[in-house]
């Protein structure tokens, strides 16, 4: 599988070059991989649909169904969302696209401790991966948005991120004849100029196609024991053991239970303490609380934590082994989650967890970066 992945990535690099270069922009009429076109819209198909889960919550063990998810967008809407996602025209100064910080080459994250916005500003938090956002109900580290549509205005209009305004965004899209045509194709029922809601819908449609459920772990789940090495199975058993308790929060099949938890990860040196969900829910008991992040493709998204406190995966895992409250700032009271304990794992057990997390990598449905985008701007990520 490591090899298969390398293949996929290698192939990705050449995909643009080998496909026929579009003379003009057309929207795909087929659904992305993993989706079946039924009645004109794309519906997700995965082996997990053959399983059940308690109260249909999509939480449990190996052969557990997924939580309810978003799908049902047309292929046109998904593909339009892809162009928007990669187009720097979306940002105030035309330098950043969504893909600058959610980069297909970096696990749909950006490889930075914290993201950097248009004017080189520290955005304060790390860019989460967008894999499997179709299954989430709450967005951002502090869970402050409750839909992908509601989430989108965050990065677009934040001065620390893309620094755009609704007026300027809609003007630049409406001024572009290609976008006017593509929006008409994607939203044939709607008259008039391109509206903000259409932009949000298209971005949502594209993001719901970012599905990663074909890792070696998944093959193990579906019944192929040899998909995981002995070390990875040991790691899985430590991960779900009640000594480490990782799966109590990072619960399969998505490796998040989507709850807010106060676990007391540190801030990197010089960063102010981030109160997280306390500010959103107005609840002092949730000071320092963050949404449990998914661990799928986690090996691809270093550095780790809401503010990039850990350079590598082992460091992030080892945090839990240093004992309850090991990084709580002096003089501060945090209501640490009861599953944050003092597990006293051996060094070997920590290594095995890291091995296991590597088996959660699957990027076979990685979207193709368009060779060109309608604005004519280079669809690049920010240069290093």
């Amino acid at each position, binding site marked *: 599988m490591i*090899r298969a992945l390398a*293949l*996929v990535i290698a*192939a990705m690099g050449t995909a643009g070059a*080998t*496909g026929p270069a579009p003379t003009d922009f057309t929207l795909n009429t*087929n659904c992305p*991989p*993993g*989706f*079946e076109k039924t009645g004109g819209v794309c519906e997700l*198909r*995965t*082996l997990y*649909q*053959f399983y*059940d889960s*308690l*109260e249909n*919550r999509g*939480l*449990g*063990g*190996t*052969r*557990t169904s997924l939580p309810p998810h978003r799908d049902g967008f047309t292929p046109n809407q998904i593909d339009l969302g892809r162009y928007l996602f990669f187009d720097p025209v979306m940002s105030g100064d035309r330098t950043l696209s969504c893909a600058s910080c959610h980069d297909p080459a970096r696990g749909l994250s950006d490889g930075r401790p914290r993201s950097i916005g248009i004017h080189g500003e520290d955005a304060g938090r790390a860019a989460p991966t967008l894999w499997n956002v179709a299954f989430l109900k709450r967005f951002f580290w502090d869970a402050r948005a409750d839909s992908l549509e509601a989430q989108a205005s965050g990065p677009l209009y934040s001065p620390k991120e893309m620094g755009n305004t609704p007026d300027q965004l809609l003007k630049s899209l409406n001024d572009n004849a290609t976008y006017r045509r593509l929006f008409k194709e994607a939203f044939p029922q709607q008259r008039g100029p391109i509206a903000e809601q259409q932009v949000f819908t298209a971005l949502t449609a594209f993001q719901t196609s970012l599905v990663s*459920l*074909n890792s070696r772990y998944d*093959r*193990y789940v*579906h*019944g*192929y024991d040899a*998909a995981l090495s002995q070390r990875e*199975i040991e790691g899985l*058993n*430590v991960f*779900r*053991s*009640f*000594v*480490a308790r990782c799966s109590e929060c990072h*619960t*399969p099949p998505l490796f998040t*239970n989507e*709850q807010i938890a*106060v676990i007391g990860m540190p801030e990197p040196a010089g960063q102010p303490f981030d109160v997280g969900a306390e500010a959103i*829910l107005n*609840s002092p*008991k*949730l000071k320092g609380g963050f949404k449990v992040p998914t661990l799928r493709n986690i090996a691809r998204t270093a550095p780790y934590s809401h503010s990039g406190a850990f350079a590598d995966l082992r460091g992030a895992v080892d945090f839990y082994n240093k004992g*309850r409250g090991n990084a709580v700032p002096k003089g501060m009271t945090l*209501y*640490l*989650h*009861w599953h*944050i*304990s003092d597990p006293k794992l051996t060094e070997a057990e920590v290594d095995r967890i890291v091995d296991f997390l590597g088996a959660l990598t699957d990027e*076979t*449905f990685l979207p193709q970066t368009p060779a060109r985008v309608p604005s004519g701007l280079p669809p690049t990520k920010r240069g290093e």
Partner: protein
Amino acid sequence: MKKGLILGVLVAAVAFGAGTYFGRSGKQDLTISSSTSGASYSGGFKADAATKPEGVIRSVAGPAPTNIVVVKDGESIQAAIKAAPKGTIVRVMPGTYHETVYIDKDDIRIIGVIEEGRRPVLDGQKKLNDAILYSGNNFVAENLEIRNYKGNGIMGQAGNNFEIRNNVIAESGVYGIFPQLGQNGIVEHNVVSGIADAAIYIGMSDNILVAHNDVFDSVAGIEIENSRHAIVENNYVHNNSGGLLAFVTPGLPIKDTVDVIFRNNFVVGNNHPNFGAPGSTVSGIPAGTGILIMAADDVVVESNIISDNKVAGMIITDHANASNITADPESDPNSDRVKILDNVMLRNGYDTIPEAKALLLADGKVGRKNLDIVRVGPSPGSCIVNRHQYITAGVDDFAECDFTNTAATVNYLLPPVPPREIKPGERGKVVYLGICTGCHTYNGRMIGPPVQVIQALYMDNPQGLADFIAKPTKKRDDYPEMPPQDYLDPETRLAVAQYMLQVTN
């Protein structure tokens, strides 16, 4: 003494003490009812007509498999499970086994063989984490002895239709028996002791029977947490810090505990010093608590013998009064609709905590030497029968229940749910769409060649295609090699081949 759990009592006492003081004086005549007559509880879980059981269910894991393997002393249980097809009884002979056993397939039964009192012993030697981890459905564990693990004795993650019975579990970490996120399970006739949290812990599970267990010397005896439709009956629960618990723990993805019956249990002398881990929910239980209901709804307490618990026979509380509990805006913090039927309560609360004494005083009950039932925090819709029998604080405003027993409710179990039937064609389609389309499209080059090309090659030979994907060989210079799809069983490989050969876009 740990008193974290009800630290806020004092504040609340003043608040509702004032309210109840006036109402009480007019209450002269007693309402006396008998549990052998009167209406039966009708509020609990009702199976829908399709799954309604015929007769009493005593087994939920389905018919016993016929395939049997035997593991002897010196051999590995896990090796046997790994080799076993689903639908296997793994018989474990007496002996000592040092291993963590995990079961990720359906229909596996681990059945110990007891010879003249000698059991198979799983011994974690205080080095191994958990004795048994299962996530398969229809799992059964019987007749085992489990000791010296650091995590849990037996832990389930999402397996449905489980049966855990006749096991002896001692000094085995945080939970003795802990099914989580499962539906339809039986935990019975287990002897569990020396556990640092709950001896038996039902977490986020539905349709559960916990019966005839002997649980002692643990922080919590039996805990029903964020679960629905559970009956806990005929258990002997003694010398724990807290005996029977019905909880809603905030911050879990399943937000409520509803419909729990505690009946016919012996809840005796639960005065063990609390040795719960700092930060754990149970570390806040005052040692000496018989039954503790926190934020759980529709808990019926009937015909238990509750005696010699030094703080109180029964505490009903909410999240606000539990200082070591985090917040969860999605959980209702109160214990709604508690129903206290006839119970035998003796010698409880003889050495209670100051907060409880203050509550008694607030109720105008001066000089009481004992305390059976104490309630702090709102508990709307609650009721009680024969309240005059007990020494209570904070329950004077409970209504009279309009039923006296739960005789009409046998249990909340379901017949074994048959495995979902998936037609090969359906499976073939889902595998094609969910996996193959990551590299193959109908008419374009992706990572692999176009499906049209494959169709031309294999039009009349689906078996040939199925064989290729199990063990792909390098075919084209300008393509990478295809990764093997050998994790799919042969039937599925053929189904996906057939599906791939007929797609048209």
